[in-house]
């Protein structure tokens, strides 16, 4: 995120960092995307899965040593990614930049994680699988699959086929990993926070299988205006629109669970993170299908609107639900209360307002850009008008990074306090 901030500052002040290849904007962008996707979100997700799956199965993780091993492997991977990407050692495939060695490492770590979680579920002590488990198991099945297909490290496809597979990966790392685990976490967290049963198990199953069916072929909607086969574009666009079905079922389920309990958002901060995430999920997933249609895509493609949409998904929705999960599970894992509720509050507002600012400035910039492309005017004639929006985005970046630093401070402080306050958190643990 720090890299994202630096990159955004370079947009408004391109000569700020000069002559340092490691800090030039494209290199920062590679690191920003990989750091957020593979580092922050994926690592956080696996952490949350390792906490939630055993509690849902009422047993221990299959092998904690294996869990630790994968954790170190993943961190090593991120160190490797940091060193290579900032020097431009990239495969040149967007979202699949990591080099061959790191890819192999990631796949091995992923398969180990999958094995670990699946074995935990196989040896469970509850008969029925809660819907979150469906989501986690599904994601851990899809993500290695998508990763292996999508990396294209050892194959060399002709350009457009490369693009087709590339977008299969680029969209499904979002759809079959970030979305599905994120939604699984929402399913886990909302009933826990509100102490209320889930509105409907049947609806949740419909949502799960809907996502499983409709997400996989959507990737090609990223290149609807390139010369790839029309039938592929048609499949992608139609299934993108069909994605509204699982999204609306999932959200109906959440909002009906919340019914009569909305006032809890005022006092319960982790719940507030989760509910904000649900709201942003609604916005992202209504934006998405419409952007995928040819006529909207025709106007909005290639602009910062899309960047705003990506941030809405990864920052607004999945980062928020992950933060909520961390706020929920850390006290239960360490047996220590959070150091300060005020800091959680500050984190929430900085991140929330920072994100709203980022979203609105990127969206406006995107509309200006698309108007420029639409009028067919050379870009250097209207690029100046975007200046204020680049600047606003940099400010929003400062707010979000400050929020995350506060969060980090809060985590560290909570870890290194005495055991005195531990009892309360333990007592609040409720089993399903």
């Amino acid at each position, binding site marked *: 995120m720090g890299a994202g901030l630096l990159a955004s500052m370079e947009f408004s002040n391109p*000569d700020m960092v*000069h002559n340092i290849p490691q800090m030039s904007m494209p290199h920062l962008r590679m690191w920003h995307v990989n750091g957020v996707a593979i580092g922050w979100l994926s690592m956080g997700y696996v952490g949350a899965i390792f906490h939630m799956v055993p509690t849902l199965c009422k047993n221990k993780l299959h092998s904690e040593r294996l869990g630790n091993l994968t954790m170190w492997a993943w961190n090593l991977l991120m160190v490797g990614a940091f060193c290579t990407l900032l020097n431009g050692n990239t495969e040149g495939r967007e979202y699949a930049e990591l080099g061959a060695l790191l890819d192999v490492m990631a796949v091995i770590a992923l398969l180990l994680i999958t094995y670990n979680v699946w074995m935990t579920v196989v040896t469970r002590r509850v008969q029925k699988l809660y819907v979150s488990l469906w989501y986690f198991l599904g994601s851990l099945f899809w993500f290695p699959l998508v990763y292996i297909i999508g990396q294209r490290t050892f194959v060399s496809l*002709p350009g457009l086929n490369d693009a087709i597979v590339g977008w299969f990966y680029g969209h499904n790392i979002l759809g079959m990993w970030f979305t599905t685990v994120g939604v699984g976490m929402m399913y886990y967290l909302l009933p826990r926070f509100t102490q209320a049963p889930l509105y409907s198990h049947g609806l949740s199953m419909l949502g799960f299988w809907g996502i499983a069916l409709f997400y*996989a072929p959507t990737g090609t909607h990223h290149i609807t205006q390139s010369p790839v086969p029309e039938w592929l574009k048609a499949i992608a666009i139609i299934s993108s629109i069909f994605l509204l079905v699982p999204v609306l079922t999932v959200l109906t389920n959440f909002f009906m669970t919340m019914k009569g309990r909305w006032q809890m958002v005022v006092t319960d901060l982790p719940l507030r993170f989760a509910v904000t995430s649900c709201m942003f999920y609604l916005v992202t997933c209504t934006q998405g299908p419409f952007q995928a249609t040819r006529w909207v895509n025709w106007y909005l493609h290639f602009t910062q609107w899309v960047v705003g949409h990506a941030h809405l998904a990864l920052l607004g929705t999945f980062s928020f639900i992950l933060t909520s999960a961390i706020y929920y599970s850390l006290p239960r894992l360490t047996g220590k209360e959070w150091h300060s509720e005020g800091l959680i509050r500050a984190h929430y507002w900085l991140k929330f307002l920072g994100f709203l600012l980022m979203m609105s400035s990127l969206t406006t910039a995107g509309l200006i850009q698309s108007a420029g492309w639409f009028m067919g005017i050379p870009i250097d004639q209207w690029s100046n008008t975007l200046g204020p929006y680049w600047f606003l985005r940099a400010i929003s970046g400062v707010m979000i990074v400050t929020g995350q630093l506060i969060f980090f401070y809060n985590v560290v402080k909570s870890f290194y306090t005495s055991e005195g306050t531990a009892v309360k958190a333990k007592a609040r643990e409720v089993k399903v």
Partner: protein
Amino acid sequence: MNGFGYRLGAIGIISTFFIIIFSTVLMPMVLFKPKDSDSFNNYKAMSGVGDPIRGRKIYIREGCLYCHTQFTRLQDRGYGPLVKAGDFNYETPHQLGTARTGPDLTNEGGRFPSEWQKAHLIQPRAVKPGSIMPSFSYLNNRDMNDLVAYIQTLGNGRKVEHYVEAPAEYMPSTWTGQELAKNRHVNTNDDASANAGRGIYTQNCAACHGLEGYGNGPNSISLMKKPANFSRPFYKQYSDEMWYYRIAEGVPGTRMPRFAWKLTPEEMWYLVAYLKTLPQEQEVTINSVEQLDKIEHIKLPKLTEQQFEPHHGNH
């Protein structure tokens, strides 16, 4: 609950999932094999100082694809002809790109001289004021030459004939364009019309674009984006419709207003007639391009002499 029925459904849906993956990942690879077009980027054709194949690796290493796309769309004007499926057979990994923070580079080869490209890579703002492209001054000379060689091969064989083209609604191909042509009673090639346009120009345009159209009117001093210098060869490519469109709709992001709100269509057509008579600047040709820069062997379009700011004045 009947566990078996549940499992049957699950198996059915998982197999459907695999069929979908098969149809969207494997099937395109089998079915979609476009033949080479005659307009793909031919990196082998280049010989000389720079190596375009290595340049492509530099392009990838420096992450140019995050801001520059490499495919033109139906609605893009001024970026050359539409790409064909066969253009991309040798583009691995693909550099289609996702965002156009900078311009499209599909047909970039030959649009600017190599020295311009080099200067632009070292300090973009020296040749394009207001650009937000990062400086790539840290590239060594070899990398730089290769990268420029790569950029110059882009769009090989599909050279841009017209950089400027009025939007469809001004062209006779659409009903709005036909309507426009029907109501046009001014002969823009006529001296009398040009004379009529002269007064309109002096009243409305000269304050920024200068009396002779050099883009050096008194207002230009305070403008961040300098007014257009009509003596540039770039503007000699303008069609009547393009001139009319520019005058009518202005240029967003600059101080150029929409004159359709102020002038009548007839006045704008007179203005077009006058603008077409403005002289082209003295041609400065480089006699020894080969000596100046050996990379420059592909044939350059008419814009060769434009070293700086193709569309605007250089004050």
